[in-house]
Protein backbone atom coordinates (compact mmCIF):
# COMPACT_ATOMS: atom_id res chain seq x y z
CA UNK A 1 0.00 0.00 0.00
CA UNK A 2 2.77 2.37 0.93
CA UNK A 3 4.60 1.64 -2.27
CA UNK A 4 1.42 2.22 -4.25
CA UNK A 5 0.94 5.55 -2.58
CA UNK A 6 4.55 6.57 -3.25
CA UNK A 7 4.08 5.67 -6.90
CA UNK A 8 0.90 7.72 -7.15
CA UNK A 9 2.67 10.74 -5.71
CA UNK A 10 5.52 10.42 -8.20
CA UNK A 11 2.96 10.18 -10.97
CA UNK A 12 1.07 13.27 -9.92
CA UNK A 13 4.23 15.28 -9.30
CA UNK A 14 5.58 14.52 -12.75
CA UNK A 15 2.29 15.48 -14.39
CA UNK A 16 2.16 18.78 -12.58
CA UNK A 17 5.74 19.59 -13.50
CA UNK A 18 4.92 18.83 -17.11
CA UNK A 19 2.11 21.37 -16.81
CA UNK A 20 4.49 23.92 -15.25
CA UNK A 21 6.98 23.40 -18.06
CA UNK A 22 4.15 24.02 -20.53
CA UNK A 23 3.32 27.31 -18.83
CA UNK A 24 6.89 28.50 -18.35
CA UNK A 25 7.60 27.78 -22.02
CA UNK A 26 5.19 30.58 -22.92
CA UNK A 27 6.83 33.13 -20.65
CA UNK A 28 9.71 35.25 -21.81
CA UNK A 29 12.11 36.98 -19.49
CA UNK A 30 12.96 40.18 -21.34
CA UNK A 31 16.71 40.43 -20.91
CA UNK A 32 18.79 42.84 -22.91
CA UNK A 33 20.10 41.19 -26.12
CA UNK A 34 18.83 37.69 -25.43
CA UNK A 35 15.24 37.36 -24.28
CA UNK A 36 15.19 33.87 -22.84
CA UNK A 37 12.16 31.64 -23.13
CA UNK A 38 11.14 29.72 -20.08
CA UNK A 39 11.27 26.45 -22.00
CA UNK A 40 14.95 25.65 -21.54
CA UNK A 41 14.84 27.19 -18.11
CA UNK A 42 11.98 24.89 -17.12
CA UNK A 43 13.94 21.83 -18.23
CA UNK A 44 16.83 22.76 -15.96
CA UNK A 45 14.48 23.66 -13.12
CA UNK A 46 12.54 20.42 -13.37
CA UNK A 47 15.73 18.37 -13.37
CA UNK A 48 17.14 20.31 -10.40
CA UNK A 49 13.96 20.01 -8.35
CA UNK A 50 12.67 16.54 -9.24
CA UNK A 51 15.95 14.76 -10.02
CA UNK A 52 16.84 12.55 -12.97
CA UNK A 53 14.09 9.95 -13.12
CA UNK A 54 11.08 12.06 -12.33
CA UNK A 55 12.52 14.95 -14.32
CA UNK A 56 12.82 12.80 -17.42
CA UNK A 57 9.30 11.41 -16.92
CA UNK A 58 7.93 14.94 -16.58
CA UNK A 59 9.63 15.89 -19.86
CA UNK A 60 8.17 12.83 -21.59
CA UNK A 61 4.70 13.83 -20.46
CA UNK A 62 5.41 17.37 -21.67
CA UNK A 63 6.43 16.09 -25.10
CA UNK A 64 3.39 13.78 -25.15
CA UNK A 65 0.83 16.50 -24.40
CA UNK A 66 2.53 18.61 -27.03
CA UNK A 67 2.22 15.74 -29.48
CA UNK A 68 -1.54 15.44 -28.97
CA UNK A 69 -1.97 19.02 -30.10
CA UNK A 70 -1.86 21.20 -27.01
CA UNK A 71 0.25 24.24 -27.85
CA UNK A 72 2.73 23.76 -25.02
CA UNK A 73 6.00 24.28 -26.87
CA UNK A 74 7.67 27.69 -26.98
CA UNK A 75 5.71 30.25 -28.96
CA UNK A 76 2.39 28.39 -28.55
CA UNK A 77 3.36 25.60 -30.90
CA UNK A 78 1.96 22.15 -30.55
CA UNK A 79 0.98 19.05 -32.43
CA UNK A 80 2.76 15.97 -33.64
CA UNK A 81 4.06 17.96 -36.60
CA UNK A 82 6.40 19.84 -34.27
CA UNK A 83 7.92 16.60 -32.99
CA UNK A 84 8.44 15.08 -36.43
CA UNK A 85 9.49 18.45 -37.85
CA UNK A 86 13.03 19.79 -38.09
CA UNK A 87 13.10 21.26 -34.59
CA UNK A 88 11.47 18.25 -32.92
CA UNK A 89 14.83 16.82 -31.91
CA UNK A 90 15.29 19.57 -29.36
CA UNK A 91 12.12 18.49 -27.60
CA UNK A 92 13.32 14.88 -27.44
CA UNK A 93 16.64 16.29 -26.30
CA UNK A 94 14.91 17.81 -23.26
CA UNK A 95 14.05 14.32 -21.99
CA UNK A 96 17.67 13.20 -22.22
CA UNK A 97 18.92 16.55 -20.90
CA UNK A 98 16.64 16.43 -17.85
CA UNK A 99 17.79 12.91 -17.06
CA UNK A 100 21.48 13.68 -17.45
CA UNK A 101 21.31 17.01 -15.59
CA UNK A 102 19.45 15.29 -12.77
CA UNK A 103 21.81 12.37 -12.53
CA UNK A 104 24.92 14.54 -12.40
CA UNK A 105 23.40 16.51 -9.53
CA UNK A 106 22.31 13.39 -7.69
CA UNK A 107 25.73 11.76 -7.97
CA UNK A 108 27.49 14.90 -6.77
CA UNK A 109 25.94 17.74 -4.83
CA UNK A 110 23.20 20.26 -5.40
CA UNK A 111 25.31 23.41 -5.48
CA UNK A 112 25.83 26.16 -8.00
CA UNK A 113 29.08 24.85 -9.50
CA UNK A 114 27.73 21.36 -10.07
CA UNK A 115 24.45 22.76 -11.34
CA UNK A 116 26.31 24.86 -13.89
CA UNK A 117 28.28 21.88 -15.07
CA UNK A 118 25.18 19.70 -15.20
CA UNK A 119 23.14 22.29 -17.06
CA UNK A 120 25.87 22.93 -19.61
CA UNK A 121 26.13 19.21 -20.29
CA UNK A 122 22.33 19.07 -20.49
CA UNK A 123 22.41 21.88 -23.03
CA UNK A 124 24.99 20.07 -25.14
CA UNK A 125 22.83 16.94 -25.06
CA UNK A 126 19.79 18.96 -26.19
CA UNK A 127 21.75 20.52 -29.04
CA UNK A 128 23.11 17.16 -30.17
CA UNK A 129 19.64 15.56 -30.25
CA UNK A 130 18.23 18.59 -32.04
CA UNK A 131 20.96 18.62 -34.65
CA UNK A 132 20.69 14.91 -35.42
CA UNK A 133 16.99 15.25 -36.19
CA UNK A 134 17.55 18.49 -38.11
CA UNK A 135 20.12 16.73 -40.28
CA UNK A 136 17.87 13.86 -41.22
CA UNK A 137 14.62 15.77 -41.66
CA UNK A 138 16.01 18.62 -43.74
CA UNK A 139 18.55 16.31 -45.40
CA UNK A 140 21.61 18.45 -44.69
CA UNK A 141 25.23 17.46 -44.36
CA UNK A 142 26.73 17.33 -40.87
CA UNK A 143 28.58 20.62 -41.21
CA UNK A 144 25.49 22.40 -42.54
CA UNK A 145 23.33 21.15 -39.72
CA UNK A 146 25.95 22.09 -37.16
CA UNK A 147 25.96 25.59 -38.63
CA UNK A 148 22.18 25.79 -38.45
CA UNK A 149 21.58 23.92 -35.22
CA UNK A 150 24.58 24.26 -32.90
CA UNK A 151 26.85 27.25 -33.45
CA UNK A 152 24.18 29.99 -33.25
CA UNK A 153 22.99 28.61 -29.91
CA UNK A 154 26.23 28.08 -28.03
CA UNK A 155 26.60 31.52 -26.43
CA UNK A 156 22.89 31.92 -25.68
CA UNK A 157 22.85 28.35 -24.46
CA UNK A 158 25.65 29.02 -22.00
CA UNK A 159 23.82 32.05 -20.62
CA UNK A 160 20.65 30.00 -20.30
CA UNK A 161 22.49 27.16 -18.59
CA UNK A 162 23.96 29.61 -16.13
CA UNK A 163 20.54 31.13 -15.41
CA UNK A 164 18.85 27.76 -15.10
CA UNK A 165 21.41 26.63 -12.55
CA UNK A 166 21.37 29.86 -10.59
CA UNK A 167 17.57 30.07 -10.42
CA UNK A 168 17.25 26.30 -10.05
CA UNK A 169 19.57 26.09 -7.05
CA UNK A 170 18.03 29.13 -5.35
CA UNK A 171 14.49 27.86 -5.80
CA UNK A 172 15.55 24.41 -4.69
CA UNK A 173 17.13 25.73 -1.49
CA UNK A 174 13.93 27.61 -0.65
CA UNK A 175 11.83 24.53 -1.27
CA UNK A 176 14.11 22.37 0.85
CA UNK A 177 13.91 24.94 3.62
CA UNK A 178 10.12 24.88 3.39
CA UNK A 179 10.33 21.04 3.53
CA UNK A 180 8.59 20.48 0.21
CA UNK A 181 11.48 18.41 -1.09
CA UNK A 182 14.14 16.43 0.68
CA UNK A 183 17.76 17.51 0.86
CA UNK A 184 18.92 14.73 -1.43
CA UNK A 185 16.16 13.12 -3.46
CA UNK A 186 15.95 9.48 -2.57
CA UNK A 187 15.27 7.01 -5.32
CA UNK A 188 11.60 7.27 -6.16
CA UNK A 189 9.61 4.12 -6.65
Amino acid sequence: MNQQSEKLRTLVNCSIFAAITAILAQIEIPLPLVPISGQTLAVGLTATILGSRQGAIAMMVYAAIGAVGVPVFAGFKGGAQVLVGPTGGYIFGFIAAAFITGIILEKTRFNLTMAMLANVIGMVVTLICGTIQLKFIVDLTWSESMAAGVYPFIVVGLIKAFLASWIGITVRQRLVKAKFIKETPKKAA
Partner: protein
Amino acid sequence: MSNSMIIGQYVPGESFVHRLDPRSKIAIIFFFVLIVFFANSVMSYGLLALFAIGAAASSKVPLPYIMKGLKPVWFLIIFTFLLHLIVTKEGDVLYNLWGWKIYEEGLVQGAAISLRFFLLILVTSLLTLTTTPIEITDAIEELLGPLKKIRFPVHELALMMSISLRFIPTLMQETEKISKAQASRGVDFRTGSFKDRIKAVIPLLVPLFVSAFKRAEELAMAMEARGYRGGEGRTKLRELSISKLDYYLYALFILLIIGLFLTRS
Protein backbone atom coordinates in the same frame (compact mmCIF):
# COMPACT_ATOMS: atom_id res chain seq x y z
CA MET B 1 -5.18 32.45 -23.00
CA SER B 2 -5.84 29.42 -20.80
CA ASN B 3 -8.83 28.43 -22.90
CA SER B 4 -7.00 28.44 -26.18
CA MET B 5 -4.31 26.38 -24.53
CA ILE B 6 -6.47 23.51 -23.43
CA ILE B 7 -8.58 23.15 -26.54
CA GLY B 8 -5.35 23.10 -28.42
CA GLN B 9 -5.72 23.42 -32.14
CA TYR B 10 -8.99 21.50 -32.27
CA VAL B 11 -11.58 22.91 -34.66
CA PRO B 12 -15.00 21.42 -33.87
CA GLY B 13 -16.87 19.87 -36.76
CA GLU B 14 -18.98 16.98 -37.99
CA SER B 15 -17.02 15.99 -41.09
CA PHE B 16 -15.90 12.53 -42.17
CA VAL B 17 -12.47 13.15 -40.70
CA HIS B 18 -13.88 14.38 -37.39
CA ARG B 19 -16.06 11.30 -36.97
CA LEU B 20 -13.30 8.78 -37.57
CA ASP B 21 -12.08 6.87 -34.56
CA PRO B 22 -8.99 8.64 -33.20
CA ARG B 23 -7.18 5.29 -33.15
CA SER B 24 -7.69 4.89 -36.89
CA LYS B 25 -6.48 8.41 -37.52
CA ILE B 26 -3.29 7.91 -35.54
CA ALA B 27 -2.56 4.55 -37.16
CA ILE B 28 -3.14 5.88 -40.67
CA ILE B 29 -0.96 8.90 -40.03
CA PHE B 30 1.79 6.70 -38.67
CA PHE B 31 1.79 4.58 -41.84
CA PHE B 32 1.46 7.65 -44.04
CA VAL B 33 4.61 9.13 -42.50
CA LEU B 34 6.39 5.86 -43.29
CA ILE B 35 5.25 5.56 -46.90
CA VAL B 36 6.00 9.18 -47.75
CA PHE B 37 9.66 8.19 -47.77
CA PHE B 38 9.03 5.57 -50.45
CA ALA B 39 7.75 8.02 -53.03
CA ASN B 40 10.31 8.72 -55.74
CA SER B 41 8.46 9.66 -58.91
CA VAL B 42 6.21 12.50 -59.92
CA MET B 43 3.20 10.20 -60.03
CA SER B 44 3.84 8.69 -56.61
CA TYR B 45 4.26 12.11 -55.03
CA GLY B 46 1.09 13.18 -56.83
CA LEU B 47 -0.87 10.30 -55.32
CA LEU B 48 0.32 11.12 -51.80
CA ALA B 49 -0.47 14.79 -52.29
CA LEU B 50 -3.92 13.87 -53.58
CA PHE B 51 -4.58 11.79 -50.47
CA ALA B 52 -3.31 14.46 -48.07
CA ILE B 53 -5.06 17.37 -49.73
CA GLY B 54 -8.22 15.30 -50.16
CA ALA B 55 -8.18 14.51 -46.44
CA ALA B 56 -7.66 18.17 -45.58
CA ALA B 57 -10.49 19.22 -47.89
CA SER B 58 -12.93 16.63 -46.58
CA SER B 59 -12.23 17.68 -42.99
CA LYS B 60 -13.94 21.01 -43.79
CA VAL B 61 -11.47 22.75 -41.47
CA PRO B 62 -11.29 26.36 -42.69
CA LEU B 63 -8.12 27.00 -44.65
CA PRO B 64 -6.77 29.71 -42.30
CA TYR B 65 -6.62 27.17 -39.45
CA ILE B 66 -4.70 24.71 -41.59
CA MET B 67 -2.32 27.45 -42.67
CA LYS B 68 -1.81 28.44 -39.06
CA GLY B 69 -0.65 24.91 -38.28
CA LEU B 70 1.80 25.12 -41.16
CA LYS B 71 3.05 28.58 -40.27
CA PRO B 72 6.04 27.55 -38.15
CA VAL B 73 7.39 25.38 -40.96
CA TRP B 74 6.74 27.52 -44.03
CA PHE B 75 10.09 29.09 -43.55
CA LEU B 76 11.79 25.72 -43.39
CA ILE B 77 10.00 24.39 -46.43
CA ILE B 78 11.24 27.35 -48.45
CA PHE B 79 14.67 27.25 -46.84
CA THR B 80 15.07 23.55 -47.70
CA PHE B 81 14.04 24.19 -51.26
CA LEU B 82 16.48 27.04 -51.70
CA LEU B 83 19.28 25.17 -49.96
CA HIS B 84 19.02 22.21 -52.31
CA LEU B 85 18.73 24.57 -55.23
CA ILE B 86 21.98 26.26 -54.31
CA VAL B 87 24.04 23.39 -52.99
CA THR B 88 23.28 20.60 -55.49
CA LYS B 89 25.47 20.79 -58.57
CA GLU B 90 24.35 17.85 -60.70
CA GLY B 91 22.44 17.47 -63.93
CA ASP B 92 21.98 20.10 -66.61
CA VAL B 93 22.24 23.80 -66.00
CA LEU B 94 18.71 25.12 -66.29
CA TYR B 95 19.24 28.76 -65.76
CA ASN B 96 22.20 31.05 -65.36
CA LEU B 97 21.62 34.08 -63.21
CA TRP B 98 24.71 36.29 -63.31
CA GLY B 99 27.02 33.34 -62.94
CA TRP B 100 24.87 31.66 -60.32
CA LYS B 101 23.76 28.43 -61.92
CA ILE B 102 20.61 26.52 -61.14
CA TYR B 103 20.98 22.82 -61.82
CA GLU B 104 18.22 20.43 -62.77
CA GLU B 105 18.98 17.98 -59.97
CA GLY B 106 18.89 20.78 -57.41
CA LEU B 107 15.45 21.85 -58.55
CA VAL B 108 14.12 18.28 -58.52
CA GLN B 109 15.62 17.41 -55.15
CA GLY B 110 14.57 20.68 -53.56
CA ALA B 111 11.01 20.29 -54.81
CA ALA B 112 10.79 16.64 -53.73
CA ILE B 113 12.08 17.22 -50.22
CA SER B 114 10.01 20.30 -49.53
CA LEU B 115 6.91 18.53 -50.87
CA ARG B 116 7.62 15.56 -48.62
CA PHE B 117 7.96 17.95 -45.75
CA PHE B 118 4.74 19.74 -46.57
CA LEU B 119 2.81 16.45 -46.76
CA LEU B 120 4.14 15.23 -43.42
CA ILE B 121 3.20 18.43 -41.67
CA LEU B 122 -0.18 18.71 -43.35
CA VAL B 123 -1.29 15.21 -42.40
CA THR B 124 -0.03 15.31 -38.83
CA SER B 125 -1.56 18.72 -38.18
CA LEU B 126 -4.86 17.40 -39.53
CA LEU B 127 -4.97 14.97 -36.60
CA THR B 128 -4.80 17.69 -33.99
CA LEU B 129 -7.17 19.92 -35.94
CA THR B 130 -9.94 17.32 -35.98
CA THR B 131 -9.40 15.51 -32.68
CA THR B 132 -9.48 16.82 -29.12
CA PRO B 133 -6.38 16.26 -26.96
CA ILE B 134 -8.35 14.05 -24.59
CA GLU B 135 -9.56 11.83 -27.46
CA ILE B 136 -6.00 11.45 -28.69
CA THR B 137 -4.82 10.59 -25.18
CA ASP B 138 -7.48 7.87 -24.91
CA ALA B 139 -6.54 6.55 -28.32
CA ILE B 140 -2.85 6.43 -27.43
CA GLU B 141 -3.65 4.46 -24.30
CA GLU B 142 -5.58 1.91 -26.37
CA LEU B 143 -3.06 1.72 -29.19
CA LEU B 144 -0.11 1.24 -26.88
CA GLY B 145 -2.09 -1.32 -24.88
CA PRO B 146 -0.01 -4.27 -26.09
CA LEU B 147 3.09 -2.64 -24.60
CA LYS B 148 1.70 -3.42 -21.14
CA LYS B 149 2.95 -6.94 -21.72
CA ILE B 150 6.53 -5.68 -21.64
CA ARG B 151 5.67 -3.64 -18.55
CA PHE B 152 5.58 -0.28 -20.33
CA PRO B 153 3.33 1.91 -18.14
CA VAL B 154 0.73 2.78 -20.78
CA HIS B 155 -2.07 3.50 -18.37
CA GLU B 156 0.16 5.68 -16.22
CA LEU B 157 1.33 7.69 -19.21
CA ALA B 158 -2.25 8.39 -20.32
CA LEU B 159 -3.24 9.27 -16.77
CA MET B 160 -0.32 11.65 -16.42
CA MET B 161 -1.21 13.33 -19.68
CA SER B 162 -4.80 13.79 -18.52
CA ILE B 163 -3.69 15.22 -15.17
CA SER B 164 -1.28 17.54 -16.90
CA LEU B 165 -3.95 18.75 -19.32
CA ARG B 166 -6.30 19.27 -16.42
CA PHE B 167 -3.79 21.37 -14.50
CA ILE B 168 -2.47 23.62 -17.25
CA PRO B 169 -5.35 26.13 -16.99
CA THR B 170 -5.33 26.02 -13.19
CA LEU B 171 -1.62 26.61 -12.88
CA MET B 172 -1.78 29.28 -15.55
CA GLN B 173 -4.28 31.24 -13.50
CA GLU B 174 -2.10 30.63 -10.49
CA THR B 175 0.92 32.05 -12.33
CA GLU B 176 -1.02 35.13 -13.31
CA LYS B 177 -2.25 35.61 -9.75
CA ILE B 178 1.23 35.24 -8.30
CA SER B 179 2.80 37.65 -10.76
CA LYS B 180 0.13 40.25 -10.02
CA ALA B 181 0.51 39.74 -6.28
CA GLN B 182 4.27 40.09 -6.49
CA ALA B 183 4.05 43.06 -8.83
CA SER B 184 1.89 44.82 -6.25
CA ARG B 185 4.73 44.24 -3.80
CA GLY B 186 7.14 45.88 -6.19
CA VAL B 187 8.67 42.88 -7.92
CA ASP B 188 9.57 43.87 -11.46
CA PHE B 189 11.47 41.80 -13.95
CA ARG B 190 11.05 44.15 -16.88
CA THR B 191 13.39 46.88 -15.75
CA GLY B 192 16.62 47.14 -13.81
CA SER B 193 20.00 45.53 -14.20
CA PHE B 194 20.56 42.01 -15.48
CA LYS B 195 21.06 40.68 -11.98
CA ASP B 196 17.97 42.43 -10.61
CA ARG B 197 15.77 41.01 -13.33
CA ILE B 198 16.92 37.47 -12.71
CA LYS B 199 16.48 37.95 -8.98
CA ALA B 200 12.93 39.15 -9.60
CA VAL B 201 12.08 35.82 -11.24
CA ILE B 202 12.69 33.89 -8.04
CA PRO B 203 9.75 35.30 -6.01
CA LEU B 204 7.54 34.28 -8.94
CA LEU B 205 8.81 30.74 -9.18
CA VAL B 206 8.97 29.77 -5.52
CA PRO B 207 5.24 30.29 -4.79
CA LEU B 208 4.38 28.59 -8.08
CA PHE B 209 6.33 25.47 -7.17
CA VAL B 210 5.02 25.50 -3.61
CA SER B 211 1.45 25.64 -4.83
CA ALA B 212 2.21 22.94 -7.41
CA PHE B 213 3.51 20.60 -4.72
CA LYS B 214 0.49 21.32 -2.56
CA ARG B 215 -1.92 20.64 -5.38
CA ALA B 216 -0.12 17.43 -6.26
CA GLU B 217 -0.43 16.22 -2.68
CA GLU B 218 -4.12 17.10 -2.55
CA LEU B 219 -4.84 15.33 -5.79
CA ALA B 220 -2.93 12.21 -4.78
CA MET B 221 -4.82 12.11 -1.50
CA ALA B 222 -8.17 12.58 -3.22
CA MET B 223 -7.38 9.79 -5.65
CA GLU B 224 -6.40 7.45 -2.85
CA ALA B 225 -9.53 8.34 -0.91
CA ARG B 226 -11.59 7.31 -3.94
CA GLY B 227 -9.77 4.01 -4.14
CA TYR B 228 -7.50 4.56 -7.13
CA ARG B 229 -5.22 1.57 -7.44
CA GLY B 230 -3.64 1.65 -10.89
CA GLY B 231 -4.91 0.72 -14.32
CA GLU B 232 -5.95 -2.85 -13.56
CA GLY B 233 -9.71 -3.30 -13.99
CA ARG B 234 -10.49 0.39 -14.37
CA THR B 235 -13.47 1.27 -16.54
CA LYS B 236 -13.73 4.29 -18.78
CA LEU B 237 -15.99 7.29 -18.99
CA ARG B 238 -15.48 7.64 -22.74
CA GLU B 239 -15.45 4.49 -24.88
CA LEU B 240 -13.97 4.50 -28.36
CA SER B 241 -15.64 2.56 -31.16
CA ILE B 242 -14.71 1.64 -34.72
CA SER B 243 -17.48 2.42 -37.23
CA LYS B 244 -18.13 1.81 -40.92
CA LEU B 245 -16.32 5.05 -41.74
CA ASP B 246 -13.10 3.64 -40.36
CA TYR B 247 -13.30 0.61 -42.67
CA TYR B 248 -13.74 2.95 -45.65
CA LEU B 249 -10.60 4.76 -44.58
CA TYR B 250 -8.61 1.51 -44.29
CA ALA B 251 -9.75 0.44 -47.76
CA LEU B 252 -8.79 3.81 -49.20
CA PHE B 253 -5.41 3.70 -47.56
CA ILE B 254 -4.64 0.20 -48.85
CA LEU B 255 -5.49 1.44 -52.34
CA LEU B 256 -3.10 4.34 -51.79
CA ILE B 257 -0.27 1.98 -50.81
CA ILE B 258 -0.88 -0.24 -53.86
CA GLY B 259 -1.01 2.84 -56.07
CA LEU B 260 2.20 4.16 -54.58
CA PHE B 261 4.15 1.00 -55.28
CA LEU B 262 2.77 0.79 -58.83
CA THR B 263 3.80 4.34 -59.65
CA ARG B 264 7.27 4.21 -58.09
CA SER B 265 10.08 4.34 -60.57
